[in-house]
């Protein structure tokens, strides 16, 4: 049986399905697990995924596209690991990743997942866009190709190809230039960071991407990396060291905070708005960085920071993690996590929903449109807020 060789064969049965994993820290509702919030069927809860995984691996259930979709609908937000009180909680997400790995080994994944991985393999991005267009976002800017600068600004797939997210990339480049830091980008030579590939269970492809990136980084003598995306931050900070890639990795909010504190960015023009901040999963729950974005926002004059009830390690995921910003197994409903999240943001009375992740940016901006909240709340990457406060936008 498949379970005999499954990495977590001695652990996966320990889930009782008590349901703690559905809640935020405030116990407000059972909607903090994105797939469960979307479908409200036990099969989509964290416990449901683990029980179904065990049933499939024990040959009590046949593989089906539906069971694969259930497993791939998990955004890896780690709310379950934070909330589960039992000692195996540190491996809940890994259990799902390992189950996905078992499916991949047998070529049994939903078509959208296959397409996502294939595009990354062939084109270096999940959208299937040409590698030769990856650096197009920086055309017309003063942003330089990386040579021997102090920092590599790693933009990532979404920041490179998505029209909306690339505004954040350019704005961030503008801010780095304004602060006078030495940085460069890889442009068309940049490759996917592989974070989503790892979380989708494609260990072989992730290894190829990590090794390819590490080789490029090392050949260029890169030591310091600042990322637009928390997903890339997670991959490079936490996963690449396993392959020998050891760098000083910063998320851009950490970098901007440093630049403001060092007096290299002048935010005195301020940003006159009530703002609420959405914690990205791969910055917050995955890497414990909850305060840098908040400290940064508090340094902007006239900006009034308001917390959503679900914040920090209780933040509801936007639903875009583990490739779901493109695979989209959670969209199409007012129960979709992104739509729930923008309603929560609007309830605070804030006029701006600040994000620190290009995937959250596009997920939540689409949700604002779907919820017809365009006149009520605007989604902005923190880089855009800081740029406005610096008088650059």
């Amino acid at each position: 049986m498949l379970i005999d060789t499954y990495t977590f064969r001695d652990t996966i049965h320990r889930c009782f399905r008590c349901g703690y994993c559905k809640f935020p820290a405030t116990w407000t509702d059972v909607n903090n697990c994105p797939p469960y919030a979307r479908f409200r069927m036990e099969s989509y809860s964290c416990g449901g995924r683990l029980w179904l995984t065990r049933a499939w691996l024990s040959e009590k259930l046949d593989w089906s596209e539906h069971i694969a979709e259930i497993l791939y609908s998990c955004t890896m937000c780690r709310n379950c690991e934070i909330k589960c009180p039992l000692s195996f909680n540190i491996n809940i997400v890994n259990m799902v990743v390992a189950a996905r790995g078992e499916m991949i080994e047998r070529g049994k994944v939903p078509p959208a997942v296959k397409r996502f991985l294939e595009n990354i393999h062939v084109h270096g991005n999940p959208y299937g866009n040409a590698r030769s267009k990856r650096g197009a976002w920086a055309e017309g800017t003063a942003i330089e190709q990386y040579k021997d600068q102090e920092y590599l600004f790693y933009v990532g797939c979404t920041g490179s190809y998505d029209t909306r997210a690339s505004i954040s990339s350019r704005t961030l480049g503008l801010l780095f230039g304004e602060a006078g830091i030495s940085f460069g980008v890889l442009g068309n030579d940049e490759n996917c960071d592989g974070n989503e590939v790892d979380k989708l269970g494609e260990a072989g492809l992730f290894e190829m991407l990590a090794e390819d990136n590490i080789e490029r980084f090392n050949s260029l003598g890169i030591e310091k990396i600042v990322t637009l995306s928390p997903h890339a931050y997670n991959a490079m900070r936490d996963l690449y060291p396993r392959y020998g890639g050891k760098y000083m990795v910063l998320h851009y909010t950490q970098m901007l905070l440093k630049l403001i504190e060092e007096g290299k960015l002048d935010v005195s023009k301020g940003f006159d708005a009530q703002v609420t901040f959405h914690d990205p999963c791969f910055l917050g729950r995955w890497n414990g960085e909850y305060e840098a974005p908040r400290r940064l926002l508090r340094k902007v004059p006239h900006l009034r920071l308001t917390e959503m009830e679900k914040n920090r390690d209780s933040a509801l995921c936007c639903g875009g993690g583990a490739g779901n910003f493109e695979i989209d197994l959670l969209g199409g409903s007012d129960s979709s996590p992104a739509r729930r999240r923008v309603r929560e943001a609007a309830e605070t009375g804030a006029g701006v929903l600040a994000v620190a992740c290009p995937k959250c940016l596009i997920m939540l901006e689409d949700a604002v449109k779907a919820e017809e909240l365009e006149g009520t709340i605007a989604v902005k990457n923190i880089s855009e807020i800081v740029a406005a406060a610096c008088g650059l936008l």
Partner: protein
Amino acid sequence: MGDDEMKTIYQALVDIVDSEHVSNRPEELYIYSFDLGTAEPHPPNYVVAPRTTQQIQEIVRLANREKVPVVPLGGGLSLAGLAIPLKGGILIDLKRMDSILEVNEKSRYAVLECGVSQAQLTSYLSRHHPDLTHSEPGAPPTATIAGNVLIHGQGDLAQPYGFNSDQVNGLEIVLPTGEVCRFGSCALGVSWFTNHPLPDIGLFFGWCGTTGIVTKLSIRLYPARKIRGFGQFVVDDENLVPEIIGKITRTQMAEDIIAYSRAIPPFGMGLQHFTVNIGADSEKELEFKQELIWDDTLGEYITSGVGGYLGFTRGLERPQISKTSDYKKGGGFEYVGSIMPIEKYPECYRRGREISERHHIPYTVTGRCVGVGHSMMFAWTYAFNRADPRSIQHSRDALHETDDLVMELGGVIWKPGTYGQRIVRDRLDPNTRALMRRIKDALDPAGIMNPGNWEGL
């Protein structure tokens, strides 16, 4: 049922709710075939998660027309297999009906949809009505208020206010024939503030979902004391437990009294621990209550050396975090609960420990005082390893032996599974049993409601 018939029912369910909240796929049928305890799984034919009373009404009418069983599911945490579709049919997952409809601060009640969870209400009250609280059971936070009430659950205000089913002001129910009925003052079109003094209906509590589906309910709320905490006390003689409970309840100063004993950790084995919850609005009141309970009431045990005071901890963990399922690193536990006369505690402890030891399961027994010493809920817990069929069988055997023990000791099995239901049924007064049969036949002529439970009356 033929394929065409099944397709027709599936499509009818989709038409009533929507395609995303109806399933006949193996994955949902598998997940909903299980209870979390030792009961054998039985799959439903369909799973549906409705959002409104009207949708439930239509589902029940469909089931009547098609003669298909209906199994209502709340949090699914009874552990007694009460929502396993023993005869297939339509499993209705009620958790999408999770709106808190009203909290009345002056008359101290809350009107809730049936899928509202314990944690959701606790959280809502603490944020919006911090002066009010409800009697929260020790179940996981996903347990629903309605489910707990319907099985005669007890919470952390059981000592002054009794069973949670004693704290109901009104119900809205979809009857097995599809009509929507209301009971309590709400039936008069006024607010949901009382269940009295209308004629006693009593048709829905303890019936394990065989007489209707509760869609809304009103429960009583109570003053949330500004300071809450628990004191701990221990004796090594189980025979002292009933008199100690009697003395503490006489003070009328405790919100909750629980006596327990367990094999793990080993240094506590054989000892009888008490947790006594105390609430107060001021330090002065707290000091007074503490002095009355620990010094004036239990001081004699402490000074004579037969008991020990282990201190007072401020703050209550609400909802409670339970790690019982992982005692054996096996993901499973089940317990037999009983409503017992308090004087039976010593024998419940001794006999339960024997059963546990016979089945190689570290023993855990717990008695929660209900009312001012009127009874206790006594539970014997058996952990098992979900990956080990022998371990599951040991627990199952121990549970059945314990069901028999409850009857032998003169208790009443709480939320009995099918085994327990059978032995309770067989001891019921024949006229009571006949009346129950008549009620069941009158309410559910097609016999569609959660069949397999309370059968053979």
